[in-house]
């Protein structure tokens, strides 16, 4: 009874989100986590600095953090960096949207149609473990040396984990959720849209996040290998290699990392938090 009363009051004060003490504790623990991180990364930077300064390796193999930062500023100022990021981001957008659409439909088909699961199921599992950059050589022949080939590689990277996530999300739905939906009159496409997809959102998001990471890797590899494409971020890396400019290569790697991390932290993580909170308690 005490528990139900406390839940009632939580619900009644939900505009306040958290009580002051709760918010305080949370803020303090977050501050501590950030403090730890700051310490860790500055030690790492100091170590790198020390190694570079020690002269054990030449500066062309291990440039100092300052040289990398300078190189980053230089490619930024030269007008190469921003268009390259824009090009890569645009490819990701297009490829990822296609992957989402195809992966979702494939996942629903796998979950709901036994014949599809028995035939395509193992294929999907198999293809998931294939590095999608393997598709680049055939794709260049099939689609020509253009955008379509690199989009194909992105889709081949992202689509499987999205499909798997949708499949296992739908499969692990509480049976009562389905019966309730059925009882209320949800069938066919409306069952998919109003019930199956939102119900699987937590699993779906995990798959989306994974798919995004695979797609980003695939794109970088594709841009690195294919010289006929409009230059993206991956291409800057191969330019660094051509001029044997280690500082530039490391600077580009930092950009690639930062982009992937930014999307993960600014888009997927907040989404996952909201969903986990709301979906978490009521399992059935």
């Amino acid at each position: 009874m005490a528990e139900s009363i406390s839940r009632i009051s939580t619900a009644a004060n939900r505009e306040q989100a958290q009580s002051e003490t709760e918010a305080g504790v949370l803020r303090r623990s977050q501050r501590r986590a950030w403090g730890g991180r700051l310490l860790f990364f500055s030690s790492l930077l100091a170590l790198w600095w020390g190694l570079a300064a020690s002269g054990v390796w030449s500066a062309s193999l291990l440039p100092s953090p300052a040289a990398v930062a300078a190189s980053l500023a230089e490619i930024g100022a030269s007008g190469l960096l921003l268009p390259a990021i824009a090009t890569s981001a645009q490819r990701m957008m297009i490829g990822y949207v296609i992957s989402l659409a195809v992966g979702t439909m494939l996942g629903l088909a796998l979950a709901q149609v036994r014949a599809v699961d028995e035939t395509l199921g193992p294929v999907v599992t198999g293809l998931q473990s294939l590095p999608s950059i393997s598709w680049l050589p055939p794709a260049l022949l099939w689609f020509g040396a253009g955008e379509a080939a690199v989009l194909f590689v992105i889709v081949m990277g992202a689509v499987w984990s999205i499909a798997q996530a949708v499949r296992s999300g739908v499969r692990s739905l509480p049976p009562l959720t389905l019966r309730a939906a059925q009882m209320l009159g949800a069938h066919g496409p409306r069952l998919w849209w109003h019930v199956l997809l939102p119900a699987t959102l937590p699993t779906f998001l995990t798959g989306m996040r994974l798919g995004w990471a695979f797609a980003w890797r695939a794109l970088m590899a594709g841009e690195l290998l294919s010289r006929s494409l409009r230059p993206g971020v991956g291409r800057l890396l191969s330019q660094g290699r051509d001029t044997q400019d280690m500082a530039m290569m490391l600077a580009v790697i930092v950009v690639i990392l930062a982009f992937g991390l930014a999307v993960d932290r600014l888009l997927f993580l907040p989404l996952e938090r909201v969903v986990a909170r709301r979906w978490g308690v009521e399992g059935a």
Partner: protein
Amino acid sequence: MPVSIQRVSKTYNRYGTSVDALDDVSLNIPDGQFVSLVGPSGCGKSTLLSLVGGLETLSRGQISRTGQPAIVFQEAALFPWRTVLDNVAFGLQLRGVGKRERRDRAASALRMVHLARFAEAYPYELSGGMRQRAAIARALVLDPTVLLMDEPFGALDAQTRALLQDELLSVWERTRKTVLFVTHSLDEALILSDRVVLFSARPGRIVADVAVEAPRPRDTADPPLAALQRHLRDLLAAEVEKVARAEMDADWEGAAVTAPSPEQNVGADI
């Protein structure tokens, strides 16, 4: 008759074995009656509700009913991504009712179960009892002639259950729905219903069908009700014992001699 069940049997076929869940059940339920179904677990009570609700197909016999019944399950099974109000309004949304009207109707259903204050809350913010009330509102908003309830209070603590029983009775007295209420508690059945139907161990057959005429609110300690309770309890105990004996037999000799039950099959798959 809003619900008429004629000589209904149900056999499930799964993993190559078949399970007889119901055997030759007939039941006529007049308009506005509150009927409780009681029986040992696994005797086919949920199956009967699913058949009446149209969620399962029957093997033999016939069921006729007025309109599409609404069901309340043991767990609320609310959609966590919708507010309480939108959960209640979902059935209307599927029926093409306009946004304004369905929100009004959902809100009045929520008022009926005293949950109006939590219309904009999400399910995770509610207690178990509140969720179950939302599930009742979700069923009532469809204005069904027949309300099917499958152990709706079975997962609640005793105080909450008593509270919800009172609320259900007051809702029923106002709306006079025909109610089929499954419970494993004889007490609950006797406090709530006009009529108690007792089922045998699987395959479910009707072993008793008694009217409860005592005026509400009821107290199972009152002599006439207590006598009825003793009578039904003895019948129920005999059926429960049959189930227990059957389960032990399965444990001892089942693997070697008798056909495995579906539950065993799952484990013995490898």
